């Protein structure tokens, strides 16, 4: 974990307008995330965890405020630029894996590489490496429906890391898995954080899952309460 900032969020406001009603999720949120941190975010349902993750990942924008990524304000980038920025910097991992059902594991993993200018050989190499890292080399040709939930989530992780992004955003990545499988997935995330220096922001409802992170945050009523900060979580 370095001392350089990956994210610096300044005075974030987020309001949703529904009809005449306007609900405020965040009202002046400030938070920084250092490079190489594994952050977990917990909090009651509806507290804005997913909304925050979406803003960090450049799929949603704050109503006002600034999101600095490595010093660059991303909230004002155009749609196209933001898409490019995501492809370059962010890997997403969802609760329900969200793999393409008609593509096998290998092709699912290859998907983000279609956005890069790589040769076939380079793409194959990256896919192979990513699948090996999540321990699924032997399932490369399987379709999602032929894989267990845990295995599908591994494919999703491989897809998230295949283009070597700095940041992984995980929304309840173990929410749909049993304890043993969940632990495997969390260990993989931890490995990616420790060995490969990926910054990870993970939303979870599970305190055990949160304990794998080295910074645990609690989100409530649009504000953060830092619970623990340690670098040595087993």
């Amino acid at each position, binding site marked *: 974990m370095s001392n350089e900032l990956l994210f610096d969020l300044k005075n974030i406001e987020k309001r949703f307008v529904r009809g005449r009603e306007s609900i405020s999720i965040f009202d002046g949120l400030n938070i920084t995330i250092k490079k190489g941190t594994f952050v977990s975010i917990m909090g009651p349902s509806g507290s804005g965890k997913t909304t925050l993750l979406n803003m960090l990942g450049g799929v949603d924008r704050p109503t006002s405020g600034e999101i600095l990524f490595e010093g660059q304000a991303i909230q004002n980038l155009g*749609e196209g630029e933001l898409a490019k920025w*995501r*492809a370059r910097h962010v890997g997403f991992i969802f609760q329900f894996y969200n793999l393409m059902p008609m*593509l096998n594991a290998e*092709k699912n993993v290859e*998907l*983000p590489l*279609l956005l890069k200018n790589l040769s076939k050989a380079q793409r194959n190499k990256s896919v192979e490496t990513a699948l090996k890292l999540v321990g699924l080399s032997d399932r490369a040709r399987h379709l999602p429906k032929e894989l267990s939930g845990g295995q599908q989530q591994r494919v999703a992780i491989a897809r998230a890391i295949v283009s070597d992004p700095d940041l992984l955003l995980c929304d309840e990545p173990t929410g749909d898995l049993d304890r043993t499988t969940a632990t495997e997935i969390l260990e993989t995330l931890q490995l990616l954080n420790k060995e490969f220096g990926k910054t990870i922001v993970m939303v979870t409802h599970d305190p055990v899952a949160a304990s794998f992170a080295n910074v645990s945050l609690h989100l409530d009523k649009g504000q953060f309460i830092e619970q623990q900060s340690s670098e040595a979580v087993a």
Partner: protein
Amino acid sequence: MNNFTLVRKNLTRNKLRLFLNCFAIFIAFLLFGALGAIKNAFDAGVELSADDRLVTVNKINFTQPLPLAYVNKIRTLEGVKDVTWANWFGGYYQEPKNQLMTFAVDPESYFEVYDDVVVDEQELENWKKDRQGILIGERIANARGWKVGDRIPVSSNIFSKHDGSSTWDFNISGIVRPENPQTDTSYTLIHYKYFMETQIWGGDWIGWIPLTTQNPELNEEVSRAVDKMFANSPAETETSTEAQFSKAFVEQMGDIGFIIMSVVMAAFFTILLIVGNSMWQSIKERTSEIAVLKTLGFTAEKVFAMVLAESFLLAALGGILGLGGAWLSIKAITPMTQSILPALVLGHQVFISGLMFIAILGFVTGIVPAWQAMKLNTIEALSRR
């Protein structure tokens, strides 16, 4: 994997749906291709008629004869360019079912009037010199495999010779080739003089008089002048342009073109609805996948292009198979329709308009789903679970 693989995998993910859509498109384009070719074959007669060519026939009925002397009288009229004459022979080869449309014509003037076909100069010379010579249309030469120099028996189901036989032997002197491939050449030409001398009825009557005018604008005037010249004579005439002649024939058979195009358009419109609905449904089912693609960094334009590419691919797949099927069916039935519809071919005109309709189909069925996919709100789509 490349973008095309992704489009292809999306298209083929639901095999049953793909099959049904493809089949519907296939049928529509099969109809389009086959009926289009048939319509063109009917139109060909009208379109390819030279616009400066008139035909004078007996007013009573075109099977009634005219005196040969009319030819020279017509030649004196103002505005007339070339005049020739012809007689119906009613030929067949070996058996009456092998119809061989044969005209007895004047070798010297025939090609002055019919200048949309060509005969090799040497072959034409040989034919003019050989009383028993016959010129055969390219279409017949190809269909029967006859060559210059062959001797063929041609029978008439109307006339007979002095010896009682109704079969004449002819030497093939040359081939009549069209300048435009759709021009009909499924006929044969023999010498008028030789025919008249050898058949038992004798005389110097003729069947009809084809002529050209100096200028298509004179057509009306010339045809009126011709008919006026022979008014109140024992053989009154009726002169019309070749195009009118063919058109009247086609119109008599009901407006085939209109009926055919209505059928094709109804089929096309139906598949537009079926396939459009199916594409829309299929994209709707993929909402969360499209949201994921966008999250991964696929731009809205790229998603738009991919959906549109999918609908184009579907239209092309079914459509090209359909046009191919039409081509095969037309090929299969041509031998049977030679005598009724000699110009029946799936020409590139039909093929190209087929491709155009494929493109329209792809675009119309894909544009709405593509637009929806492009405009899809990623956040809402991902939380809709």
